[in-house]
């Protein structure tokens, strides 16, 4: 700071920079602790409750949460559309399932004539491995949890190896070509798993039952692993690696020009993502209790894609929100797929049409489109009201009495939601924001300084309004 000249008042020192996360620290910590305690309380209630369905739904949410959060690392943070997540989950799931299979089930499989498993893979278990190392203490029935953890870890590592293999085409390909190649890899893994070459490990189309389901259906196991996944992913997102990955998403060529080894980071992202996908696959096999090929169809990746797109691409909290929606529709949507008389369906179709008209009207209002009531609004509305009335008053008609089953309604609902989200709000609910207490309370973190306020006042000066465009135009550099 310069000494004051000829008696002028001293220039005030600029206020020290205060990072936003230091503000209201006590309150935020307390709220976070309270939230965690509330989560644990809810889990305790669910775990101690009588509803086993609710327990399963919570466990499934956590398992799919692990998968979506890991897919988010590649799709959202790195910006590479990966469609092969079901393949990684298959690798992890089959590895875990085979390694943790109880000895009794192994014996029945070994003596069964329909089993394709080779003697080598029958002998492949964590139990035998630990015996081989001499750790007999971990082979008792009470220490199954340790063996399951080891099996999950090995499954994750196997999936990560496949992730590295799938990551290599990403060095040469970009965008939708890469998406298609990851899809092809995912499908090829599933098709290869059913071939004679691999069925000595996977038992072909039959798969194997009897995987202990006490872990995949346990709320504590799944939520514990989900917490670890979220912790790792959040730390990774804000680490230097995460910044590099976000840089690759924003502009790959520019980040390469900045000296980033994009190849290494892309393969790394694929490997980490595949590791957690493998863990999720192991838990998923344990949740079902069976390793089967039809658990790992492309619909799995599609559900994760819906979760990511609805919640917000790149935002971990958003992705979890989307997962909750998808799991809710999947597990509680079976009323949609039951058999009802046709009149009920007609009324439902009318209600959907009316709802669409209302949504269209709200959109037109918020976008200030004129006229507010255009054919896009009133035609579906009138049609919907007509259909609903027809269904209600014509329910005695014989042709409306026939029962009709709504196969596939849940998937139809989810795909319509995805199309609508992509068209109306491509960034999803959360966008790229993460949840924070300040965001929840709509606090302004970056309170402008006096200098910035003066600049804002200068910029909003109406006398300068016409010239602002020139100031913003920094693309053309004039000599």
């Amino acid at each position: 700071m310069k000494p004051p000249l000829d008696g002028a008042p001293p220039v005030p020192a600029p206020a020290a920079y205060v990072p936003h996360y230091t503000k209201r620290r006590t309150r935020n910590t307390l709220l976070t602790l309270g939230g965690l305690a509330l989560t644990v309380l809810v889990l305790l209630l669910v775990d101690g409750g009588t509803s086993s369905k609710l327990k399963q739904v919570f466990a499934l949410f956590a398992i799919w949460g692990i998968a979506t959060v890991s897919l988010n690392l590649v799709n959202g943070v790195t910006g590479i559309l990966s469609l092969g997540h079901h393949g990684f989950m298959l690798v992890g799931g089959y590895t875990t399932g085979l390694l943790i299979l109880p000895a009794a089930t192994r014996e029945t499989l070994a003596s069964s004539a329909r089993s394709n498993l080779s003697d080598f893979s029958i002998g492949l278990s964590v139990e035998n491995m630990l015996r081989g190392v001499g750790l007999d203490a971990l082979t008792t029935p009470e220490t199954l949890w340790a063996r399951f953890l080891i099996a999950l870890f090995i499954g994750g590592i196997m999936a990560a190896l496949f992730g590295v293999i799938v990551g290599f085409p990403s060095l040469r390909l970009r965008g939708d070509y890469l998406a298609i190649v990851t899809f092809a890899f995912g499908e090829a893994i599933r098709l290869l798993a059913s071939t004679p070459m691999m069925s000595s490990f996977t038992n072909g189309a039959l798969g194997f039952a009897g995987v202990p389901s006490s872990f995949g259906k346990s709320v504590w196991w799944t939520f514990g692993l989900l917490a670890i996944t979220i912790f790792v992913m959040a730390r990774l997102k804000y680490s230097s690696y995460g910044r590099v990955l976000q840089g690759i998403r924003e502009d790959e060529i520019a980040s390469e020009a900045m000296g980033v080894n994009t190849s290494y980071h892309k393969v790394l992202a694929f490997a980490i993502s595949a590791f957690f996908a493998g863990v999720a696959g192991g838990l998923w096999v344990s949740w079902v209790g069976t390793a089967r090929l039809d658990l790992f169809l492309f619909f799995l990746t599609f559900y994760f894609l819906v979760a990511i797109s609805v919640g917000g691409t790149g935002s971990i909290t958003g992705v979890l929100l989307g997962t909750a929606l998808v799991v809710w529709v999947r597990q509680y949507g079976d009323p949609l797929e039951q058999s009802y008389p046709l009149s009920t369906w007609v009324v439902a179709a009318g209600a959907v049409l009316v709802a669409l008209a209302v949504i269209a009207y709200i959109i037109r209002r918020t976008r200030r489109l004129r006229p507010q009531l255009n054919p896009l609004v009133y035609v579906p509305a009138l049609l919907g009201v007509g259909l609903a009335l027809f269904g209600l008053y014509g329910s005695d008609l014989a042709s409306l009495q026939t029962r009709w089953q709504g196969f596939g309604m849940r998937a139809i609902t989810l795909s319509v939601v995805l199309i609508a989200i992509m068209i109306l709000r491509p960034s999803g609910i959360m966008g790229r924001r993460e949840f924070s207490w300040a965001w929840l309370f709509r606090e302004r973190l970056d309170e402008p300084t006096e200098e910035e306020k003066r600049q804002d006042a200068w910029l909003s000066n109406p006398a300068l309004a016409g010239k602002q465009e020139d100031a913003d135009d920094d693309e053309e550099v004039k000599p």
Partner: protein
Amino acid sequence: MSASATSPKRRPWLPWLIGLVGLGLIAWRMFYLHGVNETFNAAFFSGAVVRSLQLGSLYALIALGYTMVYGIIRLINFAHGEVFMVGAFAAYFLFTKTPYSWPVAVLVGAAVGYGVMQFLGFFRTEKRDPIVLAGALIAFAVVTFALASTQLGWFAAMVASMFITGVLGMTIDRVAYRPLRGAPRNSMLITAIAVSFFLQNFGILAFSNRQTPFRPQSFWTSMLQFNVFGEPLYTSWMIVLVPVVTAVLVVALTLFVTRTRLGKAMRATAQDAETAQMMGVNVDRVIATTFLLGSMLAAAAGVLWGMTFGSINQPAIFGILPGIKAFAAAVIGGIGSLPGAVVGGVLLGFLENFLTALFPRTAAFGGITEYKDTFAFLAMILILLIRPSGIVGEDLSEKV
């Protein structure tokens, strides 16, 4: 992509060398197999060749839709396999009712004729052009006659299904893809996946949820037997019909793209959509036409597929494998290029069928039939890594 920027050395003899060596190896393998087992005779291999050509034609028809859409709006239309599925099912519901009574046949014929008139009028400036009227009348006559007769029911079903499915393709474009013009390509791709899922499950809801027999009354699906060097080969007339219909449709498409105003507009849009728009091309209409044509070809492929194999799978899985394999064929041939799609499709047909015949199940070797579904993926990944522009395609690598 600095490595691909350097232009490769010109080696015009390389394709010929690869082709000759490949043919030599194939001939050697065939003679060797014949020596191992008498059943691998000329009839066995010629059967494999005609079946490969048949399957390859079907892949080519589907791949044309992928390549046209990709060429125009740079979108991998994930839902194309499902459009193919809808085409097959639409034809199924049409021909299971044949022969129709004459009044119904006349009504449907008039509807199709009107559709043809609209379609032709779409790219003729003069609506009352004699060509338009003649086309509409021919379509009316053919469809009416075919619907009311027994033998040609499949043909009427195919024509009507092509129009229905073409309209479906245009609707998909209008509802799902047009609001996303200019959006990031990833969100367009995700939307396409969503449309594909929607159609799969809608098919289960509306059509059927199990494997469906697909046997229209037709002379073409009857048995055909001929002798190759004295050995009998049993197959059906479909091995003639499928390549012929494919050839006719491909020639018609080529004529459309090269000889009409709208075809010229399509080529201009594919080259540079923005400039084409400035030159007065109605780009949205061109894209709609692209979806119409691609979906029509897919519907034809769906009908031929069903007739070839005698049944169609349930809607949720019927479209996926043919669709993704046809996409692989389009990539192998060079996506964005029409001849590339045909070449890639036929090549993939041979890869899948003829290669399996070259490595059959013998006493010593288990055969590779179980692996043939993965060939398309592996070939596509290899092509993308070695020569991303495909066999006959132009370079599409991203520039700064």
